[in-house]
C-alpha cells in the first residue's frame, strides 16, 4: 500500500491508460498538463503524437478509432486546449466514435476563480460528449479512467472527457484496477427473442423487402458486417448503406444498391420508397436519409435494430423495435430465419428485383468525361480513376474525406468491400476532418495506403497537420478535388438561391504544390484529363506525404439529389432535370 502511494496522479493516469491497452495518444501540451508530459517523458509504453492544433488531435483519434475499432485517446491542456477540442467531440458524438479526451484543468483550489486558462470544461462539453468527469481527488483517478473507457466503448460508443485539475496530477495516491461492473450504465446488447421471431415472420412475408444498414454494423465490429453479408445472401434481399455504413456490405455485390439518401442512388432511394418490409440495422432514420418524413417509405412495415433505444421511434415509428448490438441481432436473425419454415414469396420478390433492375438501368451515377487531351477533369472521373488504380495495386486502402461535394462523390464512386476502411464526418459534417483523421488512420496502419479525398476549402481548415505528417513521416495522401468553390454551397446557391454565389468562391487559394513543399511533403498537380493518371501514379509511388491538387470542373454538381424537404421519389437526377423537377418547397428552403 505504501509502495503504491509513491505514484503521482500523472503516473496513475498513464498506468491506467496502459492497462486499458492504449498505445498512442494524440496531444498538445500546456501548463495544466505538464505533469502528464513529464510522466510521458519517463516511459516508452505509450507513444505521443504531437499535433499542430487540438482540433486535429480529436479527429486523428477518431480516425484511429474508426480504422481499428479501439478507443482513440486525446490529451490537451486547460482553457483553449479544451475549447479547441470541442468540434471534434461533437463530431465523435454524432458519429458514435469512442474517444477519450483528457483535458487539463487549473488546480482544484482555483476552479471558479477565472484563473489563467480556466474554462468550465465539463460545462462546455456536457452536451458535446457521451459523458464527462471532473476528477476531484487523485484517489478517484484510476477508477474514473477505467470507467471512462468502459463508457466510451460500450453501448452506442461516444466521446468521454476527463477533466484533470493540475494538483490531482501531482498528488500521490494508490492505484486501482478496473472494476468488473458499472454501477448504473449497463446497455442492453442481447436482442429480445420475441422481437427476433416477430421480425423474421415479417421478413418472411415480404413481397418487396429492403435492408438498410448503417454505422451501427461497423461499430459492432467486423463480425457484424460478416453476419449482415451472410443474412443478405441467405435471404436474397436488396441492401443499401448509409454514408456511415459504407463498407459494412461489399459494394461489388449484386445485391448492393449503393448508398441511399440525399445523394444516394436512384435504385436505393426508390427501393426504400417502394418496399413493403424494411429492415433497418444500425442506422437512425437521419434526415439526410429520410427526406420529407411524411413521405418516407409510407408503404412499409418496419423493423429497427439499434443499440440505443432512444434512436427507435425518434423520427420514424417502427413496428418491431430490437434494442441490441447489431452483430448479436444479426446472428439471432440468421438462426431464426433458418428455424422459421414459413415459405417466402419468391414470385413477388422476383418481380421486385425486376423493378429494381429497371431503376438500376437508369444508371443514376453516370457522367460524361471528355477524354480529349487538354479536357477539364470531371470530379467523378478523378475518383473513379483513383479507385481503379489503387484497387489494382492490391494494397490495404483507407479513405477519409473532408465535407462537401467531393465527400459525396467519394461515397458514390469509391467502392468499399470491408468495414473500417472509410472515415467521413457524417453527422456533424465537419470541414477539416479528413486530413487529421487520415493522420490517425496512418498512425494505426503505418504500411497501408491512406488517402484524404479533400476539397480545396475544407482542407485549409486543418492544413497545419501537414506539419505533424512530416514530423512523424506519415505518408498520407491528400487528393484535392479543386473546383475553386465551396462546391456544395455553390450547388445549393445554384439550385435553391437563384444562382447568387454569395461568398462561396475560394479566392486567393494557396499554391498547394508549394504548400506541400513548405511542409516537407510532395506537391503534385493535374490540370487536364491526360495528366490525371500520371499524377495518381506519382502520388501513390511517393514514400512521403503528398498533396495532389487536381483541378476539376468548377461547375459540376453532385447528383442524384433529393432536395431538402422532398421525398425519395422526387429526386433530381441530373442537370437536365433541374429546371423541371426541382421540387423545392418554401418549407424545404428552411431546412438544412
Amino acid at each position, binding site marked *: 500500500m505504501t509502495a503504491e502511494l509513491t505514484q503521482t496522479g500523472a503516473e496513475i493516469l498513464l498506468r491506467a491508460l496502459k492497462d486499458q491497452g492504449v498505445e498512442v495518444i494524440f496531444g498538445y501540451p500546456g501548463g495544466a498538463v505538464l505533469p502528464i508530459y513529464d510522466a510521458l517523458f519517463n516511459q516508452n509504453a505509450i507513444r505521443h503524437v504531437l499535433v499542430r492544433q487540438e482540433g486535429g488531435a480529436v479527429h486523428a483519434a477518431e480516425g484511429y478509432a474508426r480504422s481499428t475499432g479501439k478507443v482513440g485517446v486525446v490529451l490537451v491542456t486547460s482553457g483553449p486546449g479544451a475549447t479547441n477540442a470541442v468540434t471534434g467531440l461533437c463530431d465523435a458524438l454524432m458519429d458514435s466514435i469512442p474517444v477519450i479526451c483528457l483535458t487539463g484543468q487549473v488546480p482544484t483550489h482555483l476552479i471558479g476563480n477565472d484563473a489563467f486558462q480556466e474554462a468550465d470544461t465539463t460545462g462546455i462539453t456536457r452536451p458535446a460528449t457521451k459523458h464527462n468527469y471532473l476528477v476531484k481527488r487523485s484517489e478517484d483517478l484510476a477508477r474514473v479512467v477505467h470507467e471512462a473507457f468502459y463508457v466510451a466503448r460500450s453501448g452506442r460508443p461516444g466521446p468521454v472527457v476527463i477533466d484533470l485539475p493540475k494538483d490531482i496530477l501531482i498528488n500521490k495516491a494508490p492505484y486501482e484496477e478496473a472494476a468488473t461492473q458499472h454501477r*448504473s450504465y449497463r446497455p442492453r446488447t442481447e436482442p429480445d427473442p420475441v422481437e427476433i421471431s416477430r421480425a423474421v415472420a415479417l421478413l418472411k412475408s415480404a413481397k418487396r423487402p429492403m435492408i438498410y444498414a448503417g454505422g451501427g454494423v461497423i461499430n459492432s465490429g467486423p463480425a457484424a458486417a460478416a453476419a449482415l453479408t451472410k443474412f443478405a445472401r441467405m435471404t436474397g434481399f436488396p441492401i443499401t448503406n448509409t454514408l456511415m455504413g459504407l463498407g459494412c456490405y461489399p459494394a461489388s455485390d449484386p445485391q448492393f444498391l449503393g448508398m441511399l439518401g440525399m445523394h444516394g442512388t436512384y435504385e436505393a432511394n426508390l427501393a426504400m420508397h417502394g418496399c413493403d418490409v424494411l429492415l433497418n440495422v444500425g442506422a437512425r432514420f437521419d434526415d439526410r436519409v429520410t427526406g420529407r418524413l411524411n413521405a418516407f417509405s409510407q408503404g412499409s412495415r418496419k423493423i429497427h435494430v439499434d443499440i*440505443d433505444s432512444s434512436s*427507435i421511434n425518434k423520427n420514424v415509428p417502427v413496428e418491431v423495435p430490437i434494442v441490441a448490438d447489431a452483430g448479436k441481432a444479426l446472428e439471432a436473425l440468421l438462426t431464426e430465419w433458418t428455424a422459421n419454415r414459413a415459405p417466402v414469396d419468391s414470385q413477388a420478390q422476383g418481380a421486385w428485383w425486376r423493378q429494381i433492375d429497371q431503376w438500376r438501368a437508369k444508371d443514376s451515377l453516370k457522367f460524361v468525361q471528355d477524354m480529349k487531351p487538354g479536357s477539364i477533369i470531371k470530379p467523378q472521373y478523378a475518383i473513379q480513376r483513383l479507385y481503379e488504380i489503387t484497387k489494382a495495386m492490391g494494397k490495404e486502402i483507407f479513405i477519409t474525406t473532408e465535407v462537401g461535394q467531393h465527400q459525396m462523390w467519394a461515397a458514390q464512386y469509391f467502392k468499399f468491400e470491408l468495414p473500417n476502411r472509410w472515415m467521413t464526418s457524417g453527422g456533424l459534417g465537419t470541414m477539416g476532418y479528413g486530413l487529421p483523421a487520415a493522420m490517425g488512420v496512418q498512425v494505426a496502419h503505418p504500411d497501408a495506403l491512406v488517402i484524404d479525398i479533400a476539397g480545396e476549402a475544407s482542407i485549409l481548415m486543418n492544413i497545419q497537420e501537414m506539419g505533424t505528417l512530416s514530423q512523424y513521416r506519415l505518408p498520407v495522401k491528400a487528393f484535392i478535388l479543386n473546383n475553386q468553390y465551396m462546391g456544395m454551397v455553390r450547388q445549393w446557391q445554384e439550385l435553391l438561391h437563384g444562382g447568387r454565389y454569395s461568398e462561396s468562391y475560394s479566392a486567393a487559394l494557396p499554391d498547394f504544390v508549394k504548400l506541400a513543399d513548405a511542409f516537407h511533403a510532395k506537391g503534385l498537380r493535374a490540370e487536364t484529363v491526360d495528366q490525371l493518371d500520371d499524377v495518381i501514379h506519382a502520388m501513390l509511388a511517393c514514400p512521403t506525404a503528398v498533396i495532389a491538387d487536381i483541378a476539376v470542373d468548377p461547375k459540376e454538381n453532385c447528383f442524384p439529389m433529393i432536395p431538402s424537404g422532398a421525398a425519395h421519389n422526387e429526386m433530381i437526377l441530373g442537370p437536365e432535370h433541374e429546371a423541371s423537377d426541382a421540387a423545392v418547397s418554401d418549407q424545404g428552403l428552411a431546412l438544412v
Partner: protein
Amino acid sequence: MPSPTDTTQRSATISVLVDNESGVLARVIGLFSGRGYNIDSLTVAPVDAEGRLSRINVVTTGTDMVIEQIKAQLDRLVPVHRVSDLSLEGPHVAREMALVKVVGVGEKRVEALRIADTFRARVVDTTVESFVFELTGASDKLDAFIELMRELGLAEVSRTGIAALARGKRTI
C-alpha cells in the same frame, strides 16, 4: 407504436433514480433544454441512507412519441439507474408544498384565513398585515388555493414541485 401524427399532448410524471454526483442535475436539465422538451416542475434530493442516490421527479408535457423519447434519452445518461413513468405505470400519488404570502387588513384578511382553514393550510408566519400559509397536496389543489388568494392580497408564492411515488408495493 406511437404515431408521429398524433399531436395529443399529455402530462407525464417521470421519476429518475440517479447517482448523487455533481453535474447530474445539469445533465438532466441540459437534456430537456437541448432537445426542446418542457419541464413543468422538477424536484431533486438524495433518497438513500448513504446519500449516494438521488431521486429526480419531473413533470413534463408532450405527445406520446416525445414522452417516449424523453424516457429513452434519460435512460441512456450514464449516472441514471432507473427511469419510471409514474403516470403510465399505474396509479401514483404526487404531492407538492407551497408557501403563500398574503398581505392585507380587515375583511380580506379574515376571509383569507377562513379559506386557508378549509384548505387545511397552516399559518407559519403572521404579522398584523400578513400571513404566510403552508399548504401541501396535489398540484391542482395548490393552484386552486393560490387562485382564491389572488383577490385577497396574494403577494408571493414559493412552490416545491412535486414528490411522487407509485401506489401500492411497487417501487422504482
